[in-house]
């Protein structure tokens, strides 16, 4: 039956890798997400932008099952994340979903190399030699091969964040979630982390980025979602959302954030790197 085969083979391409439908979540009496709809297709880079406290990071935490929504459905590659009932199911999901945190969260008692090796060997059951080989390749990729035996405490913020990205990649996930990964960094080191992410996007890694780096979001994203007060105000292709936003609230937010990025006199240090990196976009 070739027809069914082609149908089955064609389906995954049509279906989003991640989809959220009407997701509601509140912490006690505080509503954080008020009906989020979001889709990420395989190979896409999707950015979520919006003011602080608008629920961006919460969306990422829901996708990897660290938080459970009270209402709505979350599906990642056929797994209903909102209905995960056992630890086994959570683990199976997280093997496929990488997560990079704002504060890096490396394991301080392990060397850089061991940070990259521990999960593949202990969780995926890979043998130590091949996991170590992969780890070195990944460290080379994030330009930190010479730091393999250093401890996280000996590295700069930007270096730690690149190790954290390599650690997530070591699990060979289908998807990586980046939670404001440059927000805790010095302006000078933001660029080195963004370069790594840009390379990943080019290689076709599915990425969901929560970010305040508007220029970067515009440059790398296939789709951008603008959130405010727990709802998606507007979404669409990056060019469209940044150049011709239709919603007045999106316009107001972009005017506010982009003007601070452009105002060199006011905020020279912060602006220096994004301008240098993306001068073609200005």
């Amino acid at each position: 039956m070739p027809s069914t085969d082609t149908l089955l083979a064609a389906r995954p391409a049509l279906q989003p890798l991640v989809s959220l439908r009407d997701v509601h979540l509140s912490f006690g009496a505080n509503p954080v997400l008020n009906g989020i709809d979001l889709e990420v297709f395989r190979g896409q880079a999707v950015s979520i932008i919006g003011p602080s406290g608008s629920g961006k990071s919460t969306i990422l935490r829901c996708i990897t099952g660290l938080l459970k929504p009270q209402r709505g459905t979350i599906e990642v590659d056929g797994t209903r994340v909102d209905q995960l009932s056992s630890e086994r199911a959570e683990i199976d999901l997280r093997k496929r979903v990488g997560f990079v945190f704002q504060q890096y969260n490396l394991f301080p008692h392990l060397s850089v190399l061991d940070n990259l090796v521990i999960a593949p060997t202990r969780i995926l059951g890979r043998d130590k030699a091949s996991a170590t080989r992969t780890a070195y390749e990944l460290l080379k990729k994030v330009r930190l091969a010479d730091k393999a035996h250093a401890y996280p405490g000996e590295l700069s913020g930007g270096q730690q964040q690149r190790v954290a990205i390599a650690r997530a990649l070591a699990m060979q996930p289908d998807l990586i979630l980046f939670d404001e990964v440059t927000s805790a960094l010095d302006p000078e080191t933001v660029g080195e982390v963004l370069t790594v992410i840009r390379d990943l996007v080019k290689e076709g890694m599915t990425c969901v980025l929560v970010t305040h780096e508007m220029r970067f979001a515009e440059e790398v994203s296939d789709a951008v979602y603008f959130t405010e007060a727990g709802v998606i105000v507007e979404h669409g292709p990056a060019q469209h959302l940044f150049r011709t936003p239709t919603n007045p609230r999106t316009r107001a937010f972009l005017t506010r954030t982009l003007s601070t990025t452009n105002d060199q006199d006011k905020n020279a240090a912060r602006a220096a790197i994004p301008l240098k990196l993306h001068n073609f976009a200005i």
Partner: protein
Amino acid sequence: MATEQLSLPLANARRQPGAMITVIAVGALLALCEREIVSHAHNVTLVALVTWAPSLGKALWVNIEISLLAIALGTLAGLTLGPLLLSPLRVVRAVTRCYVQLFRNAPLLVLIYFSTYVFPFEISIGHHILPFPDWFKVTLGLALPASANVAEIFRGAIQSIPHAQWDAARSLAFGRAQVFRLIILPQCVKRMLPPWMNLYASITMGTSLASLVGVHDLLDTAQVASNTVARADFTVLVYFTVLGLFFVYCYPIARITRRLEKRYAFN
């Protein structure tokens, strides 16, 4: 390499005060001995000390045994109680906290009297009668506060690990037990070691209280020796010896603690 070269002279500088105290103590003892030998009349004192040396040595061993057993029992009990302080069940938490607070806030001497007079002289199990010697009661008296302190050290160490470590490990598909075993506990052990060593040193010093409830420990033996020889200069000498022996046992513990603190200060 560069850091090693830098840290070496620093380490030497830090070793100075300890070394100086040792030199002064040894020097004082030598001076005392020399004075004794020069004035022949006092030779009796030295001879007495030599005579009593084996008893003092054996008595020191009693202190060492009590301290080792007390810290071992206390650590075992404390590591059992520590997790209960973090139990999701409120009742379990409350009961454990009561135990911990009660024994952490009691003077050592009170606990030693407590265990000496509250526990029976012997325990009968079926037809067997097990003796319950005084030295073991003292050990329990010291193990009680040790266990309470170890439990508290454990709780503090676990709670000092940022929650973000849990998130990071769980997002890497670690199960709860694995997070605990591979990520949280290894970080805790390093944080627990220095306070645990401090506790060990203070329990060791507490063993001298055993002399008050009739255990023939170092201090008790020194008292007996002093009364038997009945010479003022011997009394001075024997108590200096007791001081020196405790120093020899406790000082290395303090040194190792300091070294561990330095080594694990990677955060």
